[in-house]
């Protein structure tokens, strides 16, 4: 039985990935073991109930933990891997921190960096050990196109995601000759609760269903970097190579 672990299971992207996974399992008449890790038990349970209705044959478990405490992260990962070997872990949690708040308040800045940058890295690191020992597994981390180049409108969030990018890059280098794969996912702005403020401002966004499909496909293929929607690979290529004197004139 395949075992998929989702860290930050109430994230809309993660939830839609989970729906696709249980759907695929149902279509192939196989069963699936899903471990959903969240902060809030009630909300995580709500996602789990939805998945159980969609796929009664799947085994869906809920765990809650503190996401910014290194020792509880280690304990949680130990508890999960003790239950069953992990095939895929999707690390999906994040908060779109408000840039101006982070500039004004170092505490808010710290929280944003912890939750979006340090925490995913610690989870990934904790899962790597047993996966390397078993020489099997896929670690997928949701980064962001915001991590590709710092911009004045969200560089704190971008810096945290940049940390995730660089970490994933190093892990891919380290694990290149093993059967453990590291997949870094870089979504563009996506229509989820996290971005509802952007949406209210009229920003065009990708649908979460489409992004989830790209993520699930990328994980299945073990792609090192997945931009979703694909167009963002080209956009970010341009953004990253803009000369500074042009870039500094842009209000982005």
């Amino acid at each position, binding site marked *: 039985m395949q075992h998929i672990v989702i860290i930050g299971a109430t994230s*809309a992207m993660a939830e839609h990935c989970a729906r696709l996974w249980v759907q695929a399992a149902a279509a192939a008449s196989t069963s699936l073991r899903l471990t959903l890790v969240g902060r*809030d038990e*009630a*909300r995580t349970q*709500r*996602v789990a*109930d*939805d998945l*159980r*209705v*969609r796929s*009664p044959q799947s085994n869906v478990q809920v765990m809650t933990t503190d996401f910014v405490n290194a020792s509880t992260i280690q304990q949680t990962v130990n508890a999960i891997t003790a239950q069953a070997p992990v095939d895929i872990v999707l690390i999906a949690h994040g908060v779109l921190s408000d840039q101006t708040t982070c500039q004004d308040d170092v505490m808010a800045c710290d929280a944003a960096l912890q939750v979006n940058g340090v925490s995913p890295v610690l989870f990934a690191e904790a899962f790597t050990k047993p996966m390397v020992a078993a020489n099997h597994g896929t670690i997928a981390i949701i980064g962001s196109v915001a991590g590709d180049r710092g911009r004045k409108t969200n560089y704190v969030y971008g810096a945290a995601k940049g940390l995730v990018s660089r970490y994933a890059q190093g892990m891919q280098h380290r694990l290149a000759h093993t059967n453990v794969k590291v997949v870094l996912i870089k979504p563009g702005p996506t*229509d*989820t*609760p996290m971005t*509802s*403020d952007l*949406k*209210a401002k*009229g920003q*065009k966004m990708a*649908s*979460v*269903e489409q992004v989830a499909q790209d993520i699930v496909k990328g994980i299945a293929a073990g792609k090192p970097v997945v931009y979703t929607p694909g167009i963002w690979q080209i956009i970010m290529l341009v953004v990253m190579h803009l000369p500074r004197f042009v870039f500094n004139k842009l209000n982005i």
Partner: protein
Amino acid sequence: MPGRGSGKTRCALVDKGLHAFERVGVHHVAGHGLQGVFIGGFHAVLYLPVEQALAHGDRDGDNYRPYQVRNYYGGDHYYGDRDDRRYRGNRGYRGYRGDDGREYRGEYRGDRRYYGHSRGQGYGRSYGDVCLNPDGNLWHTTGLNKLIAFDETTGRLVCEAGVLLRDIQRLFVPRGWMLPVTPGTQLITVGGAIANDVHGKNHHAVGSFGDHVLGLTLARTSGEVLQLDWTSAPAMMSATVGGMGLTGVVVTAELQLRRVSSPWLRTETLPYQGLSEFFELADASEHDWEHTVSWIDCLAGQTARGIFMRANHMTAQETANMPSLKAALTVQQRKMQAKPLSMPFVPPISLVNGLSLKPFNMAYYQLQKMKSGFDVAHYEPFSYPLDNLQHWNRMYGPRGFYQYQSVVPREVGQPAVQAMLDAIAASGEGSFLAVLKTFGNREAKGMLSFPQPGVTLALDFPNRGERTLKLLDRLDAIVREAKGRLYMAKDARMSRDLFEAGYPRLSEFTAHRDAGISSAMSRRLMEF
């Protein structure tokens, strides 16, 4: 999960729904700090994809936008189409009539009296102004997209109100269950289906959507969250089913699904000439056919010709006897995964016009006639043909179109429908998608439900301004004389007295309204 949803654990199930709701309420407050946007005490609804554009600051500034919609996760094709001219044009909505009797055509700026009034909206697919709230708040429910519980033995499904009918169908049909009632599109939410008490091609056999709603959770702007079912709160249920979202926001619902053993339908297509033939066919099909519907060429006048379609669900045995269906199902499933075609832009003029209608209708009639006889169809293309063309409404150009659906009692059905067809032919206006169907001999459960015993005619008219409105007024007169009514989900312009004449239970309904909720439609047709 043994026992979930069975009769005995019913209360527990409803409780579950309530908790789901409360939980997220807390989340949203914490996550986004939206407190204070809404009427006091309505914290729970903060979870809903709450519209807050009017909340602070912007109201009097230059950035003022008439109304903005925030939606939650889940795709919504209408965002951005909603408050601009395209939207109004596309959906045939041209404004609303204020309490002062003045017509607010495309102009929402002046009157702020309704500020603070709010309403819920699902997928925004109603044709008229029932899902609009200019100058007010709009709560999108597409974020309430979770299933809560399902009992494989009884077919009872508890889900949140923003779940799309399509998602229920696609998930449960392979498992042998199906929604008993769906309208001509499955791209609507459960909440919207309840609020409009929608009907389908099988109304004569199974009734309308509300007949299969076992219970629901209703959030009111007073802060109450009500658990309703037909035994404990029959009046409130009856007001909410078909209640246009005016009694509160439906948060969760418990639905009774029906068994199906195959996604396939055995269909028969029969061309007919004249209304008497239509009624003969409809009567002959009432007992032996679950789905009946007909398309009628409304340009043909006295010699109205049409295509009558009827269908039954195939049994597992019948399906097994046709081995070719296996391959066909794979093809159909691939189609369902593929991206549907889309009308990519709004053409400068309506593509449905005087020049195109006659050849359109003639070609459609001939094509369908060629198909006459027995066939087998998958339920999706049979029931929801237009879902495969996204933004089909754009074909009507920037001015949009009016939908007009009436029901008249059976006794006067034939002359009344004939009179309507004559009036349309005389006016020179025309409708491409004219649908004629008999309703079953049963009263709907909702106080403001549309279906009633009789015959219903649905028409789409390209909006040609005064000419179109004049024709619709003439049709109104025929409906009124026949003691019929218009379908509110599709209306943007009927008069108050036609509404009051058509819906005699209005005063009973009014007592159950939520004082904090109104819509463009309710302010046009009711006291607030």
